[in-house]
């Protein structure tokens, strides 16, 4: 009878491209949330453009655009890296930096620094 370790290690290795693409796209999506928050704060014109829903205001556009950017990035990276192995360390570092920047972009004391006069 095979030991658990033997049985699991017999599994065919899977290229890490799909997971790396999802992770980096997630970082890009989070960054997009922060970026849209800063841009809407910096420009009244952009904030008005992002009023996709009247009752919700610019938040509707900021979040919709960010989700669309996330999904497009995921689609492109997913196709580019399908079946491939990438440098996961570098990709995950980039993903976490983008995620951190996204969190920073949503932090009010930070985004008000860019507030339009």
């Amino acid at each position, binding site marked *: 009878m095979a030991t658990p370790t033997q049985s699991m290690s017999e599994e065919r290795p899977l290229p890490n491209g*799909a997971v790396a693409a999802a992770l980096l796209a997630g970082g890009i999506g989070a960054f997009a949330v922060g970026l849209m928050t800063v841009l809407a704060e910096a420009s009244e014109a952009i904030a008005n453009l992002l009023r996709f829903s009247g*009752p919700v205001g610019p938040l509707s556009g900021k979040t919709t655009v960010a*989700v669309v950017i996330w999904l497009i990035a995921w689609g492109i990276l997913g196709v580019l890296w399908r079946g491939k192995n990438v440098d996961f360390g570098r990709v995950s570092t980039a993903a976490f930096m983008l995620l951190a920047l996204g969190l920073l972009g949503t932090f009010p004391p930070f985004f008000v620094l860019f507030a339009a006069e």
Partner: protein
Amino acid sequence: MSVSARELWTVIHGMAFGALFLLAFAGGLAGLYSLRPEWVTVAGLGERLTRLKFGLWAMAAIAWGTVLTGTYIVYPWYRAGDPTSPRSILLADPATAEWHRFGMEWKEHVGWIAPIAATVVAYAVSVYGSRLAHEPKIRRALIWFFVASFVAAGIAGMFGAFINKVAPVR
């Protein structure tokens, strides 16, 4: 004893979805953390993974439900222009204005990072399955993404609870 439609939607947004996501986090984290070949048998890993995949996709769906109900149902009531809306009430008093300027402004944006990060983790666990047990780098990255999702949801949930205490949506 009665609950208005607005109060009911606030409860659905904050308690049925938001709180459920935060409560489920510990289970998801434990599941991800313990995906190690030295800790589980093959049979145990299979059973654990089925539960983990279902749980993570459920959490991602709940996170989307939280931000969508919050943004498109509850938030318009919060930010309505009339002087009785919670936003108007908070901004009218300098002692409470920061609840909007800091708390609500952060909550309404940061909350959207939670479903994005949760969906990434659910997808990765579904694709990699039991192979994650042999990929500590990937597993660690997913754990930190999952934690980021929890932190984002936690900030949004905490300010939501406080703000609804100071100026409830009615």
